[in-house]
């Protein structure tokens, strides 16, 4: 049974999710939470793909979502490994304290 599918609503939800994730990345201090927010943003993108696939009756949107899923799994494993290393070396998860890469013009 096909009732009318409103892609517009779903896209608004996806946009909301994306903005939520982005806000999380920008405001959170803990690096784990920042990673979780990035996952939310990825899922927002996946939702937009699925909605677009349903709108035009194309399987590409679902294929793309599977790709995103696989990529997110790979990304989170690398990301968590990095987080572990950061914790080992700096004994903190606070992104404000991790400023090793800033430019120090007067020191070189």
């Amino acid at each position, binding site marked *: 049974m096909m009732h009318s599918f409103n892609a517009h609503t779903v896209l608004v939800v996806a946009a909301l999710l994306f903005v939520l994730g982005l806000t999380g990345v*920008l405001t959170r201090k803990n690096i784990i939470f920042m990673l979780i927010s990035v996952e939310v943003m990825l899922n927002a993108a996946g939702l937009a793909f699925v909605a677009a696939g349903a709108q035009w009756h194309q399987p590409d949107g679902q294929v793309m979502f599977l790709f995103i899923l696989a990529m997110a799994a790979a990304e989170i494993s690398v990301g968590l490994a990095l987080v572990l290393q950061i914790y080992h070396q700096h004994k903190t998860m606070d*992104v404000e304290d*991790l*400023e090793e*890469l*800033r*430019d120090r*013009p007067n020191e070189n």
Partner: protein
Amino acid sequence: MLASIAALPFLGFLLLSLAGRRLPRIAIAWIGAGSVSLAAILTVLYGIHFLQSSPDSGVDRWLLWQWFTAGNLSVSVSLSVDALSLVFIFIITFVGALIHIYSTGYMRQDRDYARFFACMNLFVGAMLVLVMADNLVLLYLGWEGVGMCSYLLIGFWYESPANCQAANKAFLVTRIGDTAMLIGLFLVFSALHTLNIPAILEQAPGHFTKGAPNITLIALLLLAGGMGKSAQLPLQTWLPDAMAGPSPVSALIHAATMVTAGVYLIARMHTLFQLAPAAMMITALVGGVTLFMAGCSAMVQTDIKRILAYSTISQIGYMFLALGLGAWSAAIFHFFTHAFFKALLFLAAGAVIEALHHEQDIFRMGGLKARMPLVFYTFLAGAAALAALPFVSAGFYSKDPILWYAWSSRNGNAFLWGLSLAGAFITAFYCTRLMLVVFGGEMKTRVRELPGKAMTIPLATLAVLSVVAGCIEWPHNLLHLSLFSDLIQKVLPAPVLKEQLPAEGIFQLAAVVVTLLGIYTGYLLYHGEKSILVRWQRSPGKVMTRNFLLGGWGFDQLYDTLFVQPFLFITRVNKTDVVDRVYEGLAQVNVKFNRLLSTTQNGSLRWYIAGVLIGILFIITLQLVL
């Protein structure tokens, strides 16, 4: 045979410069003097052959090889000898050989015996290339070659900074003339599309109209080249300082041969000069003024070699005067006799200087007549020729025609004649002064040792030539003997005279009287009435004039204020290099930008994300708006 004359000195140069350090002194002397002497003997043989059976065109050509070809300029290394070149080749090799023989004695105690002879041989070779060259490019090669050798030999005793400065000065001042000459060559090529000398002389009358600005410019540029090399006004200041070199160098390069290269160039290019009457007039004026001014300076010098240097400038002034008057053969004849007597004077002066522990001040010499009779008599022969003592000296026969043409030639006038007559008086005066002060009076410095045979034989030979060499050409109202001008006029035209001239004898009488008057004045001041000089030394005006003349009419100071000081001022101002500031500024702006942008790299992850976000928003907005 022609090629081997030029090749022998180069061979000597190669041997001496490559193996000179390992050769014993006697071998160096044999190679150095031998190569040039052999060239001189070959020249004499060749000259006899040339005079007996000269080719129809009067020119003997010898193509050696093609040097280079570029566009429609094709330059070959080819030698050509006509009567004019032959005279120069003869003087270069013959006087050169005598000076080389003299040098084997004069330089015997010098550390750099081989270097000296290597440079001298290279000089002779380059000078031969200059006068044998068939095209102007090869001529220019020889021209620069002799300039380089002159530089090397003026600064031969390089350990004294003054000598190096003199060498630099000579090189730089002649360079001004050389540059002008090079521009002249470019103009010749752009007009005629050839640098081959016979072709230029043949095509020039058809291509240029007489007195046109372009040909006048070319002639003046060539004249400027000659003025630099021949130390004529206003480029004469280098020659007195060039006396820093050893005496044989002064004799060979700065009296007999190299400084007359300008005379050769103008004589060789005579067709171009004849097409530019204004340039001819300027040549005559330059010569006339130079001979007078340099003569005045020679009167008051106290350094024996500087007296001779100024007299050289003055005598070359006579040659330029003759060239400007169109009296080509008279100029070349004066070159011919001048080479003998001026080389003799320098060599004799060298002998005196060496005998007196390198004393060059004539007022600390004196009384040498009894102690060094041979040097005295040879010096006397040279001085008599320089003063143009009538009949018994070569200088008379060559200078008398120039004085005559200064009045009688189409270009001649009373002013030029007056200048040359004044020059004759001055020359006779300073010759007398030189003889009386150096050889008369009482001895002031002890004589160390007398010159050996290697030095006295060239002196005696040159002395004999200084007396008799003039007799091959007599003033034609006295005796019809004109071997020299007959030879030269195969190549160069005869002078054109004015109409309705007074008798030549009157002018000769005037010249003789003036010369004798000069000698008498010198005798009076430096032997008869010495009190006059003492009185003059008290008058400040006369002392000032003397110092002004001593400094060569203040030309050195003039050039110092006009060119050297402004140049040094610019260098002081531009010490930090104004152009470099621009590039330093560029670098500084880059560093500033770098500082500015590197503040954004603050290590805060949040900042970076915000940056990325703003970038994305910017791109999306851009896409939506456009």
